[in-house]
């Protein structure tokens, strides 16, 4: 487990990370999402021991690691893996040479290195490409080499700093699948820094939302998707294309739905109508299969109008969103909303 205690880092007048406390459980994929300038790059540099905090503590399990002496710091860094947005591979070395580097610097024997590099190439699906110069590889292959290089020293923690941001959506998915597989097989703790909610949805178990150097929200990804507490999180969610999540489950349904709904490149929820939408309803799991609204209009004297909606798959849990207007006499709307909340549906009033 990684524990951060009131971590702060200020550059001149800019407080990049502001008293961040987090617990990152072992053997999970933990996402840290934030817009550019939210402080996520600084935060990952602090957690990965590339930089020292001005104040606060970083703990790996029962070891405090933020103020290690130089030699201990070097030794500790050698048990951390890290991958980057721009891959940061050594262009002077081949794919195999890159993977061999962390082994070389920690004094592993040449003979042993060759065998280990072959294994690692196979793990990331690049058998036989060891001799390839880096410039001849595609973006996805480069990131695979970087992953193999990061895993060469059998780290317990892998940091991914915007690791998929330079990749196209299809390659992003294949890299995320690889990371998920490796996480399971190698009992890794993966910390994923990103600005893409898709990455959080498709790969992470937990997420922390960073804004202005502070953690504004954290928890299980399914909870955050079903019940976002802050405007920042809701904003991230609104940029998701809800049809994306359906891609694998039902490609035909997706395209049909997208066509009939006239879904545009705007990408948000599928909107039937440009106007209205006084309430946002969020529901998950079994509730997505329930005829919630029609039952509501029978129980109360109200009418509803659906303005937009979508269902996404978050780790096998369906999370639905509907934007609706409710019209009714007197107290009926308020009573109907109370009823929805009692059923476990999150109601947000849109202003």
């Amino acid at each position: 487990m990684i524990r951060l205690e009131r971590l702060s880092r200020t550059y001149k007048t800019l407080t990049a990370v502001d008293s961040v406390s987090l617990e990152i459980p072992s053997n999970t994929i933990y996402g840290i999402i934030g817009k550019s300038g939210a402080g996520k790059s600084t935060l990952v540099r602090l957690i990965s021991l590339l930089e020292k905090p001005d104040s606060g503590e970083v703990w790996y399990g029962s070891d405090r690691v933020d103020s290690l002496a130089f030699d201990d710091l070097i030794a500790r860094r050698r048990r951390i893996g890290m991958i980057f947005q721009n891959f940061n591979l050594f262009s002077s070395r081949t794919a195999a040479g890159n993977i061999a580097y962390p082994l070389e610097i920690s004094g592993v024997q040449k003979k042993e290195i060759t065998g280990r590099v072959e294994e690692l190439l196979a793990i990331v699906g690049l058998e036989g490409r060891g001799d390839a110069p880096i410039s001849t590889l595609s973006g996805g292959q480069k990131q695979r080499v970087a992953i193999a290089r990061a895993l060469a020293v059998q780290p317990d923690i892998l940091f991914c700093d915007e690791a998929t941001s330079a990749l196209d959506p299809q390659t992003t998915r294949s890299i995320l699948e690889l990371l998920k597989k490796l996480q399971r097989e190698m009992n890794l703790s993966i910390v994923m820094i990103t600005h893409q909610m898709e990455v959080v949805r498709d790969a992470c178990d937990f997420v922390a939302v960073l804004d202005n150097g502070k953690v504004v929200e954290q928890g299980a990804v399914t909870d955050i998707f079903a019940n976002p507490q802050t405007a920042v999180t809701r904003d991230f969610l609104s940029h998701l294309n809800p049809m994306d999540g359906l891609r694998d489950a039902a490609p035909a349904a997706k395209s049909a739905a997208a066509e009939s709904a006239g879904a545009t490149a705007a990408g948000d929820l599928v909107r039937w109508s440009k106007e209205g939408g006084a309430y946002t309803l969020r529901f998950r799991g079994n509730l997505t299969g329930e005829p919630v609204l029609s039952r509501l209009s029978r129980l109360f004297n109200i009418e509803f109008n659906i303005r937009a909606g979508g269902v996404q798959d978050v780790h096998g849990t369906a999370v639905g969103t509907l934007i609706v207007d409710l019209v009714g006499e007197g107290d009926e709307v308020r009573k109907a909303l109370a009823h929805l909340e009692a059923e476990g549906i999150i109601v947000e009033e849109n202003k």
Partner: protein
Amino acid sequence: MNNFDAFVSLVGNATVETLVMVALSTVFSLALGFPLGIVLCVTDPAGIAPKPVLNQVISRIVNVLRSFPFIILMILLFPLSRIIVGTSIGTVATIVPLSIAAAPFVARIIESALKEVDPGVVQAARAMGSRNSQIIFKVMLPEALPALVSGVTLTVINLIGYSAMAGAIGGGGLGDLAIRYGYQRFRSDIMIAAVVIILILVEAIQFVGTRLSNRLIARR
């Protein structure tokens, strides 16, 4: 000895002297400038081991040495040449001022070649637990190799130019020959021969340097 033989031996000797001066001063200026260049890059405030004060001190010394006109530097360094090689005139004696004049140039060239290395790559190496020496020798120098080769090429060509001035202290070489025979004795044939050989030397070194650098880049 007929005229042609005399001509060949004059030009031949001068060419050998130039080659010796350039070769040896290249070796010594690299020996002096290379470590300085590495220190300049590494101790830069944005480098891997920032030492702003040391960096400023070295940087100032390098600037002062570089702004000296070579002809004056040579004269100022007479005493040093005498200490090191026992004399202040002759081909061997000129190697001292040539090396010292070129060393700060080499330092800057090496520094800028190393600073071209992608900072992300250096960060990755650091994140993997590299020691600074490992970052320098296993990451930065190999990554910068094509630029380093270009830099050394430039240094050699510069030294050919400097060595032509070495005639002023009796250093010999092609520049000296061109002045003493070509200019002062109106021997245009020798003047032309000296200039052509210098041109050929520069072209050949540039050709080899560029080829080597390109080959290194192509293999990546």
